[in-house]
């Protein structure tokens, strides 16, 4: 890595210039992010709808999430957005070794996020708090737990598993995106090690960065919706 060679990027044959290609790619990426938002949008609409008719299951269900873990993950992802942005900045400054360090930290943050998620998932699975008909949690234990926050509660609504369906679908789809994002950043990291990207060509870094920020942004909505319901 000491003799960092720089590869020059030739813009594709159907563009007039590298800037032309860059502008177009960036627009394509934004359009792609629109489709991502709409895909998650379906889940958000479903959440809003069921939250409207069964607010109690979301209140009770969320007592089984640990807001401290959720908050920790929020901080981790927000920090990773900063390092991602710095990665783009250093690429633009032509400082590839610093840029690669930033990308590596971003990937690590993603990994920390997933590890925390893993502990949260396994705790819930251990208690039998599964989605839909896989739900096997002990009704009495659930009631006792929920009573800590809602003392007046006398019984658990029968469709409580629906909350966990939302929990797993929303965080699951988000988690898949985190892993895809980590893979993409790793790919950028590898290519940068081989001399790609620099002050004249950082389209790939910026595109992956946009994707990563979106993942972060979606989590910022998921966190209050699933952890901070009152």
């Amino acid at each position, binding site marked *: 890595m000491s003799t960092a060679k720089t590869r020059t990027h030739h813009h594709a044959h159907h563009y007039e210039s590298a800037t032309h290609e860059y502008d177009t790619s960036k627009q394509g990426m934004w359009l792609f992010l629109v489709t991502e938002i709409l895909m998650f949008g379906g889940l958000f609409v479903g959440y809003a*709808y069921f939250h409207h008719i069964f607010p109690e299951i979301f209140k009770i269900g969320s007592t089984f999430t640990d807001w401290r873990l959720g908050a920790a993950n929020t901080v981790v992802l927000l920090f990773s957005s900063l390092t991602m942005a710095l990665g783009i900045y250093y690429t633009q400054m032509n400082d590839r070794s610093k840029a690669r360090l930033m990308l590596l930290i971003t990937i690590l943050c993603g990994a920390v996020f997933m590890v925390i998620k893993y502990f949260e998932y396994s705790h819930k699975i251990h208690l039998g708090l599964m989605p839909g008909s896989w739900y096997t949690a002990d009704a009495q234990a659930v009631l006792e737990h929920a009573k800590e926050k809602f003392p007046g509660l006398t019984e658990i609504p029968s469709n409580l598993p629906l909350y966990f369906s939302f929990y*797993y679908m929303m965080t699951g789809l988000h988690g898949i995106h985190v892993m895809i994002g980590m893979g993409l950043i790793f790919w950028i990291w590898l290519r940068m090690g081989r001399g790609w990207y620099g002050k004249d060509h950082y389209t790939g870094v910026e595109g992956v960065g946009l994707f990563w920020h979106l993942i972060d942004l979606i989590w910022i909505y998921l966190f209050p919706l699933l952890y901070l319901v009152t």
Partner: protein
Amino acid sequence: MAHAATHHEGTNYLNHERGLWSWLTTLDHKRIGILYFITVFFFFFIGGIFALLIRTELFKTGVTVMGPETYNQVFTYHGAVMVFLVIIPGIPAFLGNFFLPIQIGAKDVAFPRLNLMSWYCLILGAVFAVSSLFVGGADTGWTFYTPYSISLKPGVVLMVVGAFIAGFSSILTGLNFIATVHKLRAPGMTMNRIPLFIWALYSTSIIQILATPVLAITLLLIAAENIFQIGFFDPALGGDPVLFQHFFWFYSHPAVYIMILPAFGVISELIAAFSRKTIFGYTAIAYSSLAIAAVSFFVWGHHMFVSGQSEVAGVLFSVLTMLVGVPTAIKLFNWIATLYKASINLASPMLFALGFLFLFTIGGVTGIFLATTALDVHLHDTYFVVAHFHYVMVGGTLMALVGGLYYWFPKMFGRMVNETLGRVSFFFIFAGFNVTFFPQFVLGAKGMPRRYFDYLPEFEHLNQISTIGSYMIGIGFVVVFIAVIHALLKGEKAGDNPWGAKTLEWTTSSPPPHENFLKTPIVTAGPYEYR
């Protein structure tokens, strides 16, 4: 304008590279268009066989050629194949891919690799959908209504996963087209000079990227319902099956415009070229495409008038749906105004365009009937609905697809389609279509429900007429197939501009060179400057 047909050392996109591998890895939008051409027509053939099986079964009451279980699967595969693998990719991914860059003077689409990937998504989706046949098949209809579709059938899971993957083909094509139209227009090709086919594809692309992701999550949820029983749509687990209908139609109604808007674009091109007259109301036609795309997102509830949605919602959706008629009628009136005092050339592509005007009008106006809540309660889920959407999808989109194929065939392959074969195919398709589907309006109004395996004896005559008509359509498409093969093998050589049309694709050679134009065109006039 006419670039003399200097075939640059005789090379064009077809012989620029050779071998099957060069086709499967091509990044050339024209070749990808041809890949879609083959794919779409292959699946049209499959879907068509299912259609003929349906009509054959309905020729008589009782069991004719298959039992009710098989029948349910056959109409499901007919619908799913025709919607997801034929009509949605039909015009945009085939004709659009080939002509969108050429018509705006670009060398390729914005993202050629993504374009190729879109085709592989379609193929992979199709493989999943077809593989469902080997695990018991799907019998839910193409609409996958819950709770029936979440009753743990592996066939349904594979089918929805197939549609999910094919959906990405649609999303990525739309994304590619929007970026191409925004960024790759030739010098002088302002947005007010792009051909109306481009406006139509552009509007379609907007729907593709805004609506298809919602289908993606919906299908994902159906798969999750089957695999994990998550219960969103399952009343037994506290979920709501009607929520599925909202999700599904939020995509699938705009999807109807994904299917018809590109056809409008083709018709605009055909009417202008064969009227030899500047199109009447360019701006109105262009913006009405955008208007249809916008309104399309607010009408989904008209599929659910009898689902128990609130009356207020019903009335709103009814009014909004009728609103779609306004931009659509604007198009139709402008096309008719273009025909007025024009030098009309009744070549076979134009016959399909005129056939479109006739059939689509019937399809569109019966849509207004169905948008009327009181009438819809009677007609909902009857053959009236079947006839209505076939008038739009077949009488509209497929007529435009075949017309567009005949029109652009000389450009794509450098050979003319035989005019007699073209006319014969038009006769069989147009006549057969009316014989098949007009009786279904009557059957529906009399109360024959759709998707039923059997019917009351008094419906038999009209059903028999309908079945005979479907065979005529079948013959018509066999003639289309023969015409294409004949043209490829023995077609008369086409010049650069056999129709004397004015859009950019006719200024390059037939077939076009690898990068579409030997020299990037500089545009100084609108697309339809005839007289």
